[in-house]
C-alpha cells in the first residue's frame, strides 16, 4: 500500500502541475482491488483496414486512436494510460468473430469499438455475449435489435429514415417514392419500415417503387432511366436511397449525366457522407440530400474544435469528418464517463452504469444513453453543396430517442428494449413477457 502511494507520488512529480489534480483522483482510484498491477487499460479497435470496407472503416480506427491520444493527454483513465489494440478483420465477416475473441481473451481489452456492416455486428454478437464484453457500434443501422453487450451510437431508422421522409413530404410535397437500395439486410429492413410508414400516411402502393441492386453495382443506366420514367407521372417524386457506399459514385454520376436535377427529383441518401462525396465531382449533385445526425459543416464551437484537433492529429488539413466518427466520439466519452463513475472497467458494472450517461455531442446538444442501449440524437437534413460539403436545410426541433424496435412493423411494434428495469432486449409490452417475437 505504502509503496503504491510512493510510486504514485513519484509519477505525480513527473507529470507536472496541470495533471496533478487528475493524478490525485487517479491515485485514489488505484486503491481499488484487482487490476492494480496493470498500468494500462486496453481498448479494442475492430475495424476493417483492408478489403471492401476499408474505405469507410479505416477512418473510424483513426478516430479511436485520436480519442485515446486525447484522453491520455488529459491524464488517461483511472490513473492508467489507455492503450489501443488494433486488429484487422479484413472485411471478412467470420474473421470479425475470430478477431473479437482474440481481443477479449488474448489482449484482455476492457471495451471494443468496432464493426460497420450489420452482418459483421451479427457475426461478433455471440462472442460478446459469451465472453461478456462491451461493443460500441457507431453506424446507422436497420434497428430491430437490442443486446445487453452492445451499445448502438449510430442512428436507428426513426432517427434518420423517418424524419427524412417527413421532411420530403412536408417541405417538398413529395407524393411518389422510389426506395432504392443495395440488396442486403439494412436497406431491405429500412425499406420495409419506410413502406409501412408511407402507407400509414396514405401513400398508395402504385406510388411506391422499390428497387434493389447488387453490391458495387456500377451500371445505373437502366435504373436511372426507370426513376426518370417513374417521376414523370405528374406527381412530385423523390428517391430515398439506401445504396451502400461504393455504388453511390457511379449512381450519382449517372444521375448528373442524365440531367436529373435535385429540383426535379431529389435523392435523399442515408449512406452518403462527406467521405463518399470526396470521390466525386459534386457540381451536378447540387441540392441532393442526405439525412444524418451530424454534418462536418455544422457550426458549433465543439465541432469546430473537434475538426481542428482531428486535422492536426492526422496532419491533413483537408481530412473530412463524418457521422459515424461523431458516434464514436459520443460512445467513447460515454464509456469514459461510465468507467469513471463506477471506478472500474469491469464489463458488468460499466454496462449497468452506461444507461442514463449524458455527454455533449458535436452539434450543440447533449446525447443520452437510453435503457435500450440506443442514444438520443438530433436529425439533420443537408443538401449537397458544390464543394462536397452539406448545407443543413432542416433539423428536428430537439433530440430524437432511438427506437430499438420499429413502431411501423407488425412484428416489432409492441417490443421495447429495456436493460435497466426489465433487463430484457425484446420485452413485449402487450403480453408483458421478455423474449417477445422479433422479426
Amino acid at each position, binding site marked *: 500500500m505504502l509503496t503504491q502511494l510512493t510510486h504514485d507520488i513519484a509519477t505525480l512529480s513527473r507529470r507536472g502541475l496541470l495533471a496533478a489534480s487528475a493524478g490525485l483522483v487517479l491515485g485514489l482510484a488505484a486503491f481499488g482491488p484487482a487490476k492494480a498491477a496493470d498500468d494500462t487499460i486496453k481498448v479494442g479497435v475492430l475495424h476493417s483496414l483492408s478489403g471492401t470496407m476499408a474505405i469507410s472503416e479505416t477512418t473510424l480506427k483513426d478516430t479511436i486512436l485520436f480519442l485515446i491520444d486525447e484522453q491520455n493527454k488529459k491524464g488517461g483513465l483511472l490513473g492508467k494510460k489507455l492503450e489501443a489494440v488494433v486488429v484487422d478483420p479484413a472485411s471478412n465477416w467470420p474473421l470479425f468473430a475470430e478477431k473479437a475473441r482474440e481481443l477479449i481473451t488474448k489482449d484482455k481489452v476492457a471495451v471494443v469499438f468496432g464493426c460497420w456492416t450489420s452482418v459483421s455486428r451479427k457475426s461478433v454478437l455471440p462472442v460478446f455475449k459469451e465472453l461478456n464484453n462491451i461493443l460500441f457500434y457507431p453506424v446507422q443501422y436497420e434497428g430491430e435489435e437490442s443486446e445487453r453487450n452492445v451499445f448502438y451510437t449510430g442512428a436507428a431508422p426513426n432517427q434518420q429514415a423517418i424524419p427524412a421522409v417527413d421532411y420530403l413530404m412536408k417541405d417538398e410535397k413529395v407524393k411518389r417514392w422510389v426506395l432504392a437500395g443495395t440488396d442486403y439486410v439494412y436497406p431491405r429492413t429500412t425499406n420495409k419500415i419506410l413502406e409501412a410508414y408511407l402507407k400509414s400516411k396514405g401513400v398508395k402502393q402504385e406510388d411506391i417503387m422499390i428497387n434493389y441492386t447488387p453490391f458495387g*453495382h456500377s451500371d445505373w443506366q437502366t435504373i436511372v432511366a426507370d426513376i426518370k*420514367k417513374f417521376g*414523370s407521372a*405528374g406527381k412530385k417524386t423523390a428517391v430515398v436511397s439506401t445504396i451502400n457506399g461504393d455504388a453511390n*459514385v457511379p449512381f450519382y454520376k449517372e444521375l448528373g449525366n442524365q440531367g436529373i436535377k435535385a429540383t426535379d427529383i431529389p435523392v435523399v441518401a442515408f449512406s452518403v457522407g462527406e467521405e463518399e462525396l470526396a470521390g466525386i465531382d459534386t457540381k451536378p449533385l447540387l441540392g441532393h440530400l442526405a439525412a444524418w445526425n451530424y454534418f462536418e459543416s455544422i457550426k458549433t464551437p465543439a465541432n469546430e474544435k473537434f475538426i481542428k484537433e482531428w486535422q492536426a492529429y492526422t496532419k491533413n488539413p483537408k481530412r473530412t469528418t463524418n457521422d459515424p466518427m461523431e458516434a464514436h466520439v459520443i460512445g467513447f466519452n460515454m464509456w469514459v464517463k461510465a468507467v469513471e463513475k463506477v471506478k472500474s472497467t469491469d464489463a458488468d458494472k460499466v454496462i449497468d452504469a452506461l444507461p442514463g450517461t449524458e455527454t455533449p455531442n458535436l452539434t450543440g446538444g447533449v446525447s443520452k444513453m437510453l435503457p435500450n442501449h440506443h442514444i438520443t440524437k438530433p436529425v439533420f437534413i443537408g443538401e449537397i453543396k458544390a464543394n462536397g460539403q452539406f448545407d443543413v436545410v432542416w433539423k428536428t426541433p430537439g433530440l430524437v430517442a432511438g427506437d430499438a424496435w420499429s413502431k411501423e412493423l407488425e412484428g416489432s411494434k409492441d417490443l421495447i428494449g429495456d436493460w435497466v428495469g426489465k433487463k430484457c432486449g425484446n420485452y413485449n409490452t402487450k403480453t408483458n413477457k421478455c423474449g417477445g417475437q422479433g422479426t
Partner: protein
Amino acid sequence: MRTEEAAILPPPPTFCRGRPVVANVFDRLRTLVLSVFLIAAFALPAFAGAFEDAVAKFANDEFSDTEEAIGTIATSGNPLAFPIISALGEDRLSADPDTRKVFITQADGKIIDAATGAAVDKLPDNAASVRLNNRLRRTVEAALGGLTLLSPDPVKRIAAAQSVFKTHDETMLPVVDGALAKETNKAAKQAFAEARAAILLYKQDATDVEKLEAIVAVKARGDQEAMALLTGLGSDQSPAVASAAANATAAIQRTLALWSTVQNAWYGLSLGSVLLLAAIGLAITFGVMGVINMAHGEMVMIGAYTTFVVQETIRTSYPGLFDYSLLIAVPLAFIVAGAIGVLIERTIIRFLYGRPLETLLATWGLSLVLQQAVRTAFGPTNREVGNPSWMSGAFELGQITITYNRLWILCFTLAVFAILLAMLRYTALGLEMRAVTQNRRMAASMGIATSRVDALTFGLGSGIAGIAGVALSQIDNVSPNLGQSYIIDSFMVVVFGGVGNLWGTLVGAFTLGIANKFLEPVAGAVLAKIAILVLIILFIQKRPRGLFALKGRAVEA
C-alpha cells in the same frame, strides 16, 4: 419643366406608370414625355425603396425571406434584377449579416453592390454566400425563366420557355404570348408554343377549346415531361378535356414504350462495351496464353490509378491541359500496367506454365498484394478522377438520353479491339504470338524466342487492362477494389465467347450486355445478374468451349 409637370399632377400612386391619369388632358406626345418623366421622377425611387428592402432581405439567412425577396426583385423591373437572381442561382451572391449589404461576385471576379450596382473592392470578411434549398432553386429557375424569355440569345429563350413549360405559371401567359408573336427562330417558337399550351392546360378559366388545342400541342411534344404534364391534370376537368388528355397520354405511352426498347438496346451495347473493355486484356492472357490470371482486375485498377496520378499532376501544374488528361493517361497506363505485367510474367508466372491450379493461387495472392500496396500508397478511400468536359453530360436522341461518357467508351472499346486485332494479324510480334500459342515447340524450332514472346504477350494483355482502367475510371470508383468487381465478369465473357478467340470475346460481351439490359427492367438488377449466370452455366454445359470454339490439332495439343 420638371417642376411644372410635377406641380400640375397629384402625386402618382406607386404602381401607376403615368399614362391613364393624364391621357385625357394632354396630347399623345406630351403623354409620352410625361410618362417617361413620371417613371424617372417618382416611380423608380418608389420602386427602388422596395427593391432595396428586398435585396437586404437576403442578409437574413432565412429561406422564407429569400423567397419573398426573389419575388419582389423579379417583378421590380430593375436592371439589376437579372444579375442578382442569376448570381443567386449560381452561388455568387453573398450577404453581410451585420451591414445587411448584399454583393454580387461577377463572372470575371469583380464585385458589385447588389442594391446600387456600385463597384466594391473586396467582400467584407463576414460576408457569406446566400443559401438556397431545392424549393428556392425552383423559384430562382422560374424567376430567371421570366426574366430571360425576351433574351436576345435564342438558346436562353428556349431554356426559359422550357422552364415555363415545367412551372406553367399563369402569370407568365401575357409575356409568353408577346414573345411568341415576335419570335422568328423556329425552335424557340415551338418551345414558346409548348410553354403556352402548358399554361393554358393548367389555367383555371381557360375554355375547353383552348385546352383541347393545348393537349394537341403537348401531345406533339411526346416526351416524358409532356406525359407528366398530362397525367398531372386534376380530376376537375370537363369530360371532353379529360378524355382527350387520357388519349394523348396513351399515345405518348405507346411511343415511349417503343423508344424504351431502343433505349434498352443502347444500354446493352454500352454495358457490353464495358464488359468487352475489361475482358480484352484477359482474352489475351487467359484466352491466348491460357494463364488463369486472377490479378487481371488489379491491372485495370493500376490503369485507373495512373489516370488519377496524371490528373493530379495536371491539376497542380498544368490546369489548362485537363481536357486532354485521358489522352495522356492512355499511353502511360499501357506502359505502367504493361511493365508490371512483364515483371509478373518474368518473376512468377513463367515458372508455373502448365500448372493451372498453382497459377490461379499465385495470381490470386498477387492480386491481394497489389490491392494492399495501392491501399497503402494512395489510402483506402476513393480517389476523384474528373470527367473532361467532352465526357460530361448527355444528348437526346429522339426520346432516349445518350450520355457522352458511355458513347465515348463504346467508341474507345471498338478502337482498342480493332487495333489489337490488326496487331495480332499484321505485325511480326502478332505472328510470333499466334505461333507460340498454337504450337510452342514448333515455334521454338523455327527460331522464335518463346520466353520473350511469352513475356511480351502477358505484358500486352496487362497493358490493355491498364487502358481499360483509364476508361473505367470515368464511370466507376477509383478505389483499391476497382478490379475485383470486373474480374468475374471478365472471365464470364471470355469463357462464354470461347477461349482463344477475340471475336468470341466481342460477341460474348455484347450478347451478355444486351441480355442483361433487357432482363433488368423485367427482373430487377439482382435477378437479372443471377439469370445471366444461370444461362451461362447451362450454355457451357451444352458447348463447353464457348460460342466460338477454336478447332484443329493445336487446341488438343
